[in-house]
């Protein structure tokens, strides 16, 4: 008995060493394959210094354009989130196992959300640019559908956690399905619903800054423009604006989360 245990530990030790060696070998192989050699890194230092030198001091040549683009990014994020939240909630009601009218439907919606989730927002943006042309519209659609991928999953999970006793109680009082969801289910999961929706808004504001890079509206495009014209001072300024935008979004959503919690605590009269 004891011996076999010892042998097992030995075997495990050997296996771990083997994994470590393999991982290290792969690391070296990747370095060589991708042509990351020390001399290249050293050479790049010069050019890096040039780029960084060009960044300072940051300038804003067209403040109206940049701020206009920043506002557009935020608008894209908010609209995308709102559409995403509404569609996701409706889908989540049919996806949550405890509320869905059929198991097949629940499975189908969850699989659909999983697929949508697997495709990055940038790819959706590229697809929608082809479909509806450049501008903020493909950005909004891309964020909406990308939000759906995540929100359907988390809303459905929140719905599955509610106390089914409440549903039974309202149904047994003769309430309709819609009554049960609006009066019993939503109040029971409201804090989770608000927290996830605000979190998603946060994520979408980050994404919306990137989406402009592929031409789906917003501030990302300003960044690409500056970089392509080698105006690194402008690029830094745009980056700072993006940073400010994302930071303030985080602060605001945190504040709203707190307010929402105290508001639902008092609930409706």
């Amino acid at each position, binding site marked *: 008995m004891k011996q076999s245990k010892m042998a097992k530990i030995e075997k495990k030790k050997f296996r771990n060493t083997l994994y470590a060696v393999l991982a290290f070998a792969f690391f070296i192989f990747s370095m060589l394959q991708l042509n990351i050699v020390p001399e290249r890194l050293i050479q790049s230092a010069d050019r890096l210094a040039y780029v960084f030198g060009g960044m300072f001091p940051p300038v804003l040549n067209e403040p109206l354009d940049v701020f206009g683009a920043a506002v557009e990014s935020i608008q894209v994020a908010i609209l995308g989130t709102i559409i995403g939240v509404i569609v996701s909630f409706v889908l989540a009601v049919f996806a949550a196992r405890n509320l869905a009218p059929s198991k097949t439907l629940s499975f189908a919606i969850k699989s659909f959300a999983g697929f949508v989730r697997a495709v990055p927002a940038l790819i959706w943006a590229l697809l929608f640019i082809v479909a509806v042309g450049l501008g903020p519209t493909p950005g909004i659609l891309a964020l909406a559908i990308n939000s759906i991928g995540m929100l359907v999953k988390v809303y459905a999970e929140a719905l599955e956690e509610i*106390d089914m006793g*409440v549903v039974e109680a309202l149904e*047994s009082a003769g*309430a309709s399905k819609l009554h049960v969801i609006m009066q019993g289910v939503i109040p029971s999961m409201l804090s989770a619903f608000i927290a996830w929706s605000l979190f998603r808004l946060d994520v979408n504001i980050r994404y919306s800054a990137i989406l402009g890079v592929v031409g789906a509206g917003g501030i990302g495009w300003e960044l690409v423009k500056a970089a392509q014209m080698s105006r690194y001072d402008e690029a830094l300024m745009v980056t700072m604006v993006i940073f400010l935008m994302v930071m303030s979004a985080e602060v605001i959503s945190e504040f709203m989360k707190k307010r929402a919690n105290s508001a639902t605590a008092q609930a409706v009269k």
Partner: protein
Amino acid sequence: MGETIVDIHNLNKTYPDGTVALKNISMKAEKGEFIVIIGPSGAGKSTFLRSINRLSEPTSGEILFMGKDIVKAGKKELRTLRRNIGMIFQGFNLVKRLPTVRNVLHGKLGYMSSLKGAFGLFDQDQVEEALGILKRVGLEEQAFKRADELSGGQQQRVAIARAINQSPQLILADEPIASLDPNSSRVVMDYLKKACREEGFTTFVNLHQVDFAKEYADRIIGIKDGEIYFDGSGDDLTDEVIEALYSKEKEAVAG
């Protein structure tokens, strides 16, 4: 003899896994009767109550209520029948985050249109009525507190208020005091009995405390292995009957 409110014929319930929960139950209940159902755990008490408003679908049988067969009722008809049947649960089943009075107002949902009910657009009269009912169960002070701020006994009284607010003909209470301490249990049973007397509805209560059953019931029904084993007044329920009701089947042991 009062009028018959519920008339049950040959009610059967077999769960999908083959467990037979109810076997050919037939009984009648009259208006205003306070009926306590007792019996060992797993005897089918809960299934019996839940079959009456079809939270649990009966396999076969007939439940006549207000002249209609609940078992055969369509979706819409079932809603109409259900609003006349209040239900009280062991776990209270209130919407915990909502104020007490809103929970009482939920008793009116069965009478409201889809949109009005969905958005909780209760009118002033309904709110006043709900507050009045809360007063009757001694909770007017707690009306605007969140339901989960109340004690267990108080929450169960809110659930009773919600059921009263349905203006029901029948109330089904499934182990209403099983998770309460003896004092709160007594208060809850007192309010339930009082409401039954004042409103004149028929009440079915599942209990596992025989002493409470004897004290409160107009009529006691003992269920054992899915069948009615005893049906009579508290005085008829002798110690021998109780022992037999709660005893396990001895034949298997005796061989």
